[in-house]
């Protein structure tokens, strides 16, 4: 195995170990003890939190910013695809077939989405105000990871570049904002529990209409 593959494996191991630490810490801290009388269903709230609550029709942040929302979804899908590609290489498998062209194309599109998001962060006054160096580094690392994945699918000789970019991103993931890969799930879980307990969620259209009667 080449040195860059070892670098990728080493980075993955570090990343997984630190992420595991974060997950174990969350589990050990547990849920807040709730003494108030429950009026809704926390389970339904949690399910809603991860499903319908993300729908642009009930979420202004998505519906009022649809292009950014779609770019964000594409960007995240690109990260998953590049991640699967990385695991394939680590497992010693050689990606092949015509469908690779599709994945390469998708990775370029997702990298483009990431670039667009970066440009927006650099040019939008309010985003500039709230951004930290961490935000730019995270974006550049992930975007480069996706783009190099796309290039690797077309030019297998670029494997070292892809593996190094993957390794750098994974080493950075647990220390910067990329760790929202873990905390996103924890935050939505807590939010679903909170709103579900109080019968605020689920709140879908039908229920709203029915409740208005």
């Amino acid at each position, binding site marked *: 195995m080449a040195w860059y593959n070892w670098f990728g494996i080493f980075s993955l191991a570090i990343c997984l170990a630190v992420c595991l630490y974060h997950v174990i810490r969350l589990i050990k801290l547990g849920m*807040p003890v709730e003494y108030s009388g429950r009026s809704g269903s926390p389970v339904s709230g949690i399910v809603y939190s991860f499903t319908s609550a993300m729908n642009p029709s009930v979420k202004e*942040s998505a519906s009022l910013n649809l292009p950014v929302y779609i770019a964000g979804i594409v960007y995240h899908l690109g990260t998953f695809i590049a991640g699967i590609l990385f695991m394939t290489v680590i497992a010693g498998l050689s990606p092949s077939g015509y469908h690779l062209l599709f994945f390469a194309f998708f990775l370029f599109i997702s990298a483009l989405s990431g670039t667009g998001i970066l440009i927006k962060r650099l040019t939008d006054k309010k985003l500039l105000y709230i951004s930290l160096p961490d935000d730019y580094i995270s974006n550049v690392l992930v975007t480069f990871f996706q783009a190099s994945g796309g290039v690797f699918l077309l030019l297998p000789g670029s494997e070292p570049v892809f593996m190094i970019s993957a390794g750098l991103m994974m080493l950075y993931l647990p220390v910067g904002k990329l760790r929202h890969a873990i905390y996103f799930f924890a935050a939505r879980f807590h939010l679903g529990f909170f709103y579900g307990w109080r019968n605020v969620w689920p709140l879908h259209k039908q229920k709203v209409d029915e409740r208005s009667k």
Partner: protein
Amino acid sequence: MKEANEKIRKGLEVLGSGEDSKLLSHLNACVRCGLCAKSCIYYLSMKDEKLIPASKVDIVASVYRRYFTFTGRQLPGLVKARDLDDKTVTEMVDLLFGSCTVCGRCVKHCSIGVDIEYVVRKGREMLSVMGYVPSTLQSTVRSALDTGNNMAISHGDFVDTLEWMEEELQDEVDDPEARIPMDEKGKKVMYTLNPREPKFFPISISAMAKVFYAAGESWTLSTRMYDVTNYAYFSCHPDEAAVISRRMYDEVNTLEAGMLVLAECGHGVRSNRWESPNYIKKQFGFEVLSSVELMAKYIREGRIRTDRGALKEKVTLHDPCNLVRGGGIFKDQRYILKQCAEDFVEMTPYGTDNFCCGGGGGQLAMSEYNERRMRIAEIKAEQIRKSGAKVVAAPCHNCIDQLSQINFTYKLNVKVKTLAEIVADSLII
């Protein structure tokens, strides 16, 4: 120096207490996408970047990063980790107390699911234990702690007002036996009031008394602990909030009431129904209900009858944030209005998407932010104007105060009423 360090220690203890995973989750989840901006009345009104909800989260998270994360300790510049110094504290006070009504609208619309309101409240808690609550808000809390109600109404004055309102009630229902019971033990309902009622709007006491009278309810008011509000919920001092919460809990038990019924007060309902048990770490052994839920129950069960055409003018409803987004009470206020009004129209948006009136989060108590409060109120004024309504119903005395000021400032020429007043005027006795 020693005192300053002690303050910092206390503030950091809030972030590092490690009670559960909730705070840790929300502090680490924000990706600073900025999409929450358009959900915030402060940002929408003033278009100032520092008012974006993400910015409010970040000032708390930046302190957390500085003291509790590897990156923040080793490379603070990378993640803009901040020391908890005077500059940070000053900014925190302005952002978390002066530029947020903790309405929670941004929470529902956060792309990630960060409970921004919860983080802001934790930031306020830090400031509170450090002694940096704006003095106007703290004096309101102090009044409640020292006198038993936030307006420091004396026991004598309160009893006089109730006796006066009892006479009004007797005249209105033409029954000399109609009563406003005080400190009576063993009643089914112990009812509470917002101190604004005896102080400024005593008519709303007799309105609810009329509803109880019509329903034939077994009820009482306590003259010792009747204040539904808990301003320590706004200042976020857990010990002070617990003292006020425990007083209410103890009084229900002293009077051996079966149920605590909370007056029309958004934060009063939220703090007593949802937060108080957590403040005192005790499950209540009695039912806690808002008066909105109770009135809807009376109508549904036929215990009171209302004239559906009693209110002929077009009426709209303001949804108090703490009642709807923070408490899940959505249906009952609409049901009540439809039983009393000919023409009910929703604001746009409404329900869990409704905009705060601008008076929440303790803003009405913090006069230093009055100008901002009335500026952000423009959004609510426009909502009301566009509804075309002549009457605005609001099941919250705090909101009523703010809406009345909005009515005057923005020349809306509407009437602002509580639901109890509307129901009382519609009763068929």
